[in-house]
């Protein structure tokens, strides 16, 4: 199942990439393409910030996600103001968007960490018995 999901993600990424390249070549930069490219740009900035947070801080999972929430929200708000997604009346929406993404990421991370620990400990047990 894991392999099917992984292959689906790879295939869909390739399809999006091909559709994008052909669309930009023949139709030009539409609003939809611009939006997706901006989302890629935003993801890159957030991923870079997360990388440095992971590398240079040693926080608990909850504290780590709290810091990431604040940093990512600030980035999304700033980015949103620059590219015109947010205005003074709706900037609070960034808190909701980032919150939902991070809550999902937190639960996936917590489950994955638990599974990884169980796997490592079971291998150590196998080795010693």
């Amino acid at each position: 199942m894991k392999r099917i999901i992984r292959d689906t993600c790879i295939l869909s990424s390739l399809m999006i990439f091909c559709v994008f390249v052909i669309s930009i070549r023949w139709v030009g930069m539409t609003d939809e393409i611009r939006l997706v490219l901006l989302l890629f740009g935003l993801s890159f900035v957030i991923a870079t910030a997360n990388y440095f947070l992971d590398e240079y801080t040693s926080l608990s999972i909850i504290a780590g996600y709290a810091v990431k929430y604040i940093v990512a929200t600030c980035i999304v708000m700033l980015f949103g103001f620059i590219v015109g997604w947010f205005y003074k009346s709706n900037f609070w929406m960034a808190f909701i968007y980032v919150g939902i993404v991070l809550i999902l990421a937190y639960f996936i991370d917590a489950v994955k960490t638990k599974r990884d620990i169980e796997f490592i400990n079971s291998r150590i047990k196998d080795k010693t018995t």
Partner: protein
Amino acid sequence: MRIEKRQVEGQPLTVIIEYPKWNESVDNLIKKIGRMDITFAGKSEEREVSISIRDIYYIENVERKLFLYTKDEVFRLNVSMPEIESRIYDTSLVRISRTCIMNTDYLKEIKQIKNSHLEAVMDNDEKLIVSRKYLSDIKKMFRKEGL
């Protein structure tokens, strides 16, 4: 492949490889054995000591100084962290945080402690902090060992 072993007292551990023709498998085997015999030059109370990779429990960077820990001794290393990392490739040593490299051969358990921090307990009961970022690298190492 035929494996022969015999005890020869008073001699260092010696591995002799006989092969009918040099090929990739022979090359890999020699490289693998070679990696088991990596040594680091450590310093302890002004004496220089050669420490085998098999005796290393962990290596830690404390205020830009590297220290190598065996079961009950500590040595100062005069190499950089990237240099160590390049030498431990495909061995049982793995990075567990920005400042620490651990030998998984002596790992007793990984625990999730208070505040969801991760802790590695070594077989001499020393405890090391594991960064979540490197947990998947430790897992990969055990997955590789299981093959």
